[in-house]
């Protein structure tokens, strides 16, 4: 028992988050009971969380290196459109024989497009020193633009029936896509905590200038991070098209606010260097449970938006007070030595 407390005490964000999540789940269980927490309900929740989870993880990685990625949803849209075009039979006719190859090709196209979008972001941020917000704002419009220009804004339907099985099949009780998400979270978590690269990611977020002076090739770290973000975006696109069986530009625009929300909720610092993948996973569970129960209570999308926006501001405000200890302490730099001496003298 002592060990548990020691573990919880080490990470305050985790303990608060875990406590809140458990409390919310218990309260909602008492209110909604089996409507929410049946096997079917849990499965549909875990499928929903899968398509969004990849985007949230991508946003989290961007925040670890003191950035933000406004282009995740647009990039997922573009990757999805490219993959959907591959699997629509428009360019390559689909026969029952080559269906498997087409699916593999579609997945490769989605991942490659995602990777390329990430690399472009990384290049603009690392090599041209454009602030991440602006760089990804620009590429967000660009990726949307490319997608719209290719599709004229219309929806592309998939013509490979077996691809949809990805979204419906299960491994034991767990949906396939959820297992994918779980595996991705574990891999990214291992990369961040167990590899040199992961250390460098955190160091860069903590102090970019110091990292450069300690001989780490910081630009390469940024490029790599955004490349991983790109692959995650490609994975999100695969899940989205498997679920919807079609793709259009502009799909899931509300995910952008939610992705930022869940990452901040998980205790990631938008200034970089702080945040754990495990916490992000718990925050995702919390968000999904709230979201599903709002649907069960028949909340309108606007009411949902109020809740998301309100939680976002509340959590950020709370973090500010918790981190700073006392309000305002964070903003003012510690008084310089002379000021401190003067203060000391005036006190006497």
């Amino acid at each position, binding site marked *: 028992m002592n060990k548990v407390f020691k573990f919880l005490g080490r990470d305050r964000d985790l303990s608060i988050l875990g406590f809140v999540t458990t409390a919310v789940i218990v309260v909602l269980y008492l209110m909604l009971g089996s409507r929410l927490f049946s096997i079917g309900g849990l499965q549909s929740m875990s499928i929903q969380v899968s398509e969004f989870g990849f985007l949230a993880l991508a946003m989290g990685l961007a925040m670890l290196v003191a950035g933000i990625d406004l282009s995740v949803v647009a990039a997922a849209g573009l990757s999805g459109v490219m993959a959907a075009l591959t699997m629509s039979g428009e360019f390559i006719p689909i026969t029952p024989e080559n269906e498997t190859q087409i699916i593999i090709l579609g997945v490769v196209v989605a991942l490659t497009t995602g990777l390329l979008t990430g690399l472009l972001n990384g290049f603009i941020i690392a090599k*041209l020193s454009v602030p991440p917000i602006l760089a990804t704002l620009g590429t967000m419009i660009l990726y949307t633009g*490319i997608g719209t220009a290719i599709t004229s804004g219309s929806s592309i339907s998939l013509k490979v029936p077996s691809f949809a099985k990805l979204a419906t099949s299960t491994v034991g009780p767990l949906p396939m896509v959820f297992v994918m998400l779980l595996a991705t979270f574990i891999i990214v978590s291992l990369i961040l905590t167990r590899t040199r690269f992961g250390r460098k990611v955190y160091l860069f977020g903590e102090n970019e200038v110091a990292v450069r002076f300690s001989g780490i090739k910081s630009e390469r770290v940024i490029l790599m991070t955004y490349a991983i973000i790109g692959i995650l975006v490609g994975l999100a696109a695969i899940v989205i098209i498997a679920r919807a069986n079609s793709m259009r530009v502009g799909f899931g625009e509300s995910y952008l*606010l939610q992705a930022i929300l869940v990452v901040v909720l998980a205790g990631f610092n938008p200034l970089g260097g702080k945040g754990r993948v495990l916490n992000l996973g718990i925050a995702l569970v919390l968000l999904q449970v709230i979201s599903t129960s709002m649907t069960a209570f028949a909340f309108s999308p606007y009411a949902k*938006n109020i809740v998301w926006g309100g939680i*976002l*501001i509340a959590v*950020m405000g709370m973090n500010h007070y918790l981190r700073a200890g006392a309000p305002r302490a964070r903003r*003012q730099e510690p008084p310089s030595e002379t000021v401190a001496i003067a203060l000391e003298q005036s006190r006497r």
Partner: protein
Amino acid sequence: MMRNVTTRVLNRKMTPMEKFLLAIMAIYIVIVASQSPKFFSLETAFDLARNGSGAMILALGCLIVLISGGLDVSFTAIAIVGGYSSVLLSRALGVDNLLFIVAGAVIIGALLGSINAVIIHFFQLSTLIATLGTASVFHGAMVILLGSKTFTRADVPQSMLDFGAFSIFTIKEENSQYGLTIFFPIVIAVGVLTWFLLYRTMIGRSVFAVGSDPESASRIGINILRTRLFVYMYVGALSGLMGIIYFSGLAYINPAALVGTELGVIAAVVIGGAKLTGGEGTILGTVLGVVLWQLFQNTLVHLGLSSSFNDLFFGAVLVFMLGFIYLRQRQANKRALVFTSN
């Protein structure tokens, strides 16, 4: 004295960004004009003025926020909330007066803006994240409290219809007639007001100071809260005004419109050379950025391209310009041995 000021303003050297934007615009206009002779006409210019005036007003507000070192994404939500609530109020009270409606929208906008300022100031939040949150709260609260009914032409207050259709002068041709919209002088007035506030008043100078370095600004005695309140209330007020102009121009009131287009406005301002790090940005640059954006939005048809290509062109120019601006700064920093994390 006045003449002195005017010549100084006119003789100001253009920033590299502004020159660059002008060059791109000139090339684009030459290409389009050579493809379609109809493009180079007063009618196109008047159309552009009409369609772009709302965006221009929002952009000027956005410029002030960027100069103050922030990034506001709630102004479109404020424009809709201000405009829509004011129209509902005028309908409920039966007051069909344009001044009343505009005043209502501007006041509501400024109030919502002050909420932004207070949240940003006291929680020390990233302005992007704070306004992302307030935008969905403002817009969501409005829809829940006031509903989301749309009003077609028959239900729009008559004074707004007159306002939207009013032209300061019209040109008649054989089979068509077009005029310069009343919005145009309003945009000019807002531009001049913004310029005056930014460059000729204490509060405007303190916006630059806070944007450059809040710490130094507060040490020389600038009240940061007051500056922020001014910045976000001014943006809110402009957004409210824009909401009315937008609804009047369309003669159709839809509370779900406009929200989601804020990033385009910000991009237009950024293209004009305003820096995210604060303290930098010019009105001329903003105007050029918005004009270029609106050119892409409205005139690609003359090249025979559908509107699906709008974002592609604008996005490409935006990414290119951003790369150009910040690469220059990066090289300058390297030469001067400045090591910053921007």
